[in-house]
């Protein structure tokens, strides 16, 4: 038996997770279909809103549809492809981490990749479709949209992983993760520039919703190297912080926090 290359193992794991999502065909189409309809309703809302109200703080229908396309893509990746990310705290509380620790894999990567949420794959389809139909796609814009979405996903996943790692330290059933992730998602679902100073500050730091949609939209519409740098930097920093948080949490978990004693 030779040590397999981690990247290939992860790829194979991801493929398996996708096969699983696809396995129950009827359920797959029902869930994806429902999500597509769900997303459409949001698009209708925004179209109606801006049709009635016009531009707000420099945002119009086009901008908000681009924002929503990015949001859908980000949630498709962060909650669809990496479905376990936001459930990390709960998984740890359920003892699922133990099963992973007895496998010759990197626990965080394996946990994240191992499960795909079928419904959110609808988002993953909707996002690009919306971009193509409503956001004036050009090769340059498409590339920026992809970059922006990937960075946004990195920030999103890192944030929820950090919150999930808290469970390894303080216990609980992952509620911290739930609330934080909801807050992140809500804030990222609205045009960044309507928010006032204090909220915006929060969105650029503690609850990094700005990097999920706001900054990526800026990147696509008004590209500048500074914006790209900021986004890439935010993504990189988030990933590093998330890894550190998980490692610290794991150390605490393995050294035996009281609550982990099943």
């Amino acid at each position: 038996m030779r040590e397999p290359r981690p990247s290939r193992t992860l790829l194979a794991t991801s493929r398996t997770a996708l096969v699983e999502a696809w396995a129950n065909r009827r359920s797959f189409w029902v869930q994806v279909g429902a999500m597509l309809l769900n997303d459409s309703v949001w698009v209708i809302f925004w179209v109606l809103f801006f049709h009635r109200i016009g531009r707000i703080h420099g945002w119009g229908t086009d901008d908000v549809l681009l924002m929503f396309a990015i949001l859908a893509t980000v949630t498709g990746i962060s909650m669809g492809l990496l479905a376990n990310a936001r459930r990390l705290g709960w998984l740890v509380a359920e003892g699922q981490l133990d099963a992973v620790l007895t496998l010759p894999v990197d626990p965080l990567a394996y946990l994240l990749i191992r499960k795909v949420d079928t419904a959110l794959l609808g988002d993953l389809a909707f996002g690009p479709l919306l971009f193509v139909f409503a956001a004036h796609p050009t090769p340059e814009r498409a590339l920026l949209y992809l970059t922006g979405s990937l960075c946004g996903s990195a920030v999103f996943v890192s944030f929820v992983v950090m919150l999930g790692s808290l469970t390894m330290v303080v216990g609980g059933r992952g509620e911290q993760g739930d609330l934080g992730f909801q807050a992140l998602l809500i804030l990222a679902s609205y045009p960044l520039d309507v928010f006032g100073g204090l909220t915006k500050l929060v969105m650029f730091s503690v609850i990094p919703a700005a990097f999920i949609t706001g900054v990526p939209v800026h990147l696509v519409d008004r590209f500048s190297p500074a914006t790209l740098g900021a986004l890439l930097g935010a993504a990189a920093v988030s990933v590093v912080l998330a890894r550190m948080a998980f490692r610290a949490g794991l150390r605490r978990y393995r050294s035996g926090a009281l609550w982990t004693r099943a």
Partner: protein
Amino acid sequence: MLAIEAEGLRKVFTGRGGGPKGRRRTRSVEAVRGISFSVEAGERLAYIGPNGAGKSTSIKILTGILHPTSGTATVLGLTPWKQRRDLARRIGVLFGQRSQLWFELTPRQSFDLLGRIYGLDRSATRLRVDELGGLLDSRDLFDAPLRNLSLGQRMRCELAASVLHRPEVLFLDEPTIGMDLVAKQRFREMVVRLNAEQGTTVFLTSHDVSDIEQVARRVIVINGGTLIYDDRVSRMRRSVLSTKLLDVRFEQPPAPGSLDFDGMQVIKETGLGYKLVVDTERRSIREVLDTLLDTQRVADISVLDPPLEDVIARIYERRPS
């Protein structure tokens, strides 16, 4: 060759909470208090104790999940918590209520991926799955989606998954929880077969006494974090309880008072069938049999060891040695 060696293992859990709401002070719980034992390669060991005795903690230390507070342990020559990933390649672990398999997929599809994780190539995995299908009587299960299988069937597939890579040691933590009687028996048979035909060392934690009888040759009993008994199962009954059960069927009802003698007691009476308990410290079995056969018309008689539950209960009552 020693598969597992533990010396003075201690595990203290510290943290806040665990008390009534609002009382968040730091507490510590010593779950394992200095346990030492060793397990030879190829052995079948049951590691039993009541809830909270430290069984799960011990197995988590031995599989590398937890660091002990003090003491040493080696599994296959490796220190589990320091060499977790290396060890993971050589051991198999099955937790009673956690699944390694994907719910919507067939076990075979899950095996494909797990094989890759363990570094087996496609054909090796396929051969091994075939072999396990035969060994565990589960060939017909491997191609149904996991969600369609019953708990007992699922656990047999999980068992196959845990030994896909031919581990030298198999750790099982309460594997038969929730299974019905028949499923439990089948599962136990499979574990024994694995040990018999592949030489896999088996380390099984449980609080189900039948797991001991049907799977283990050796039993370690722990309670309150300390090891209080370590012996072969066959000797356990005899050495711990000095009672024997007699199952007797008489040809005609015994005269009243004729079964009253010192060291023997009637515990059940159903028509002509009697269950008697003999305290072998007071009166030898030989004597009792002789007396019964001489004074009564006996149609059938069997001599039985006391039920294992009683034995275990008696062991729990012991002070740690």
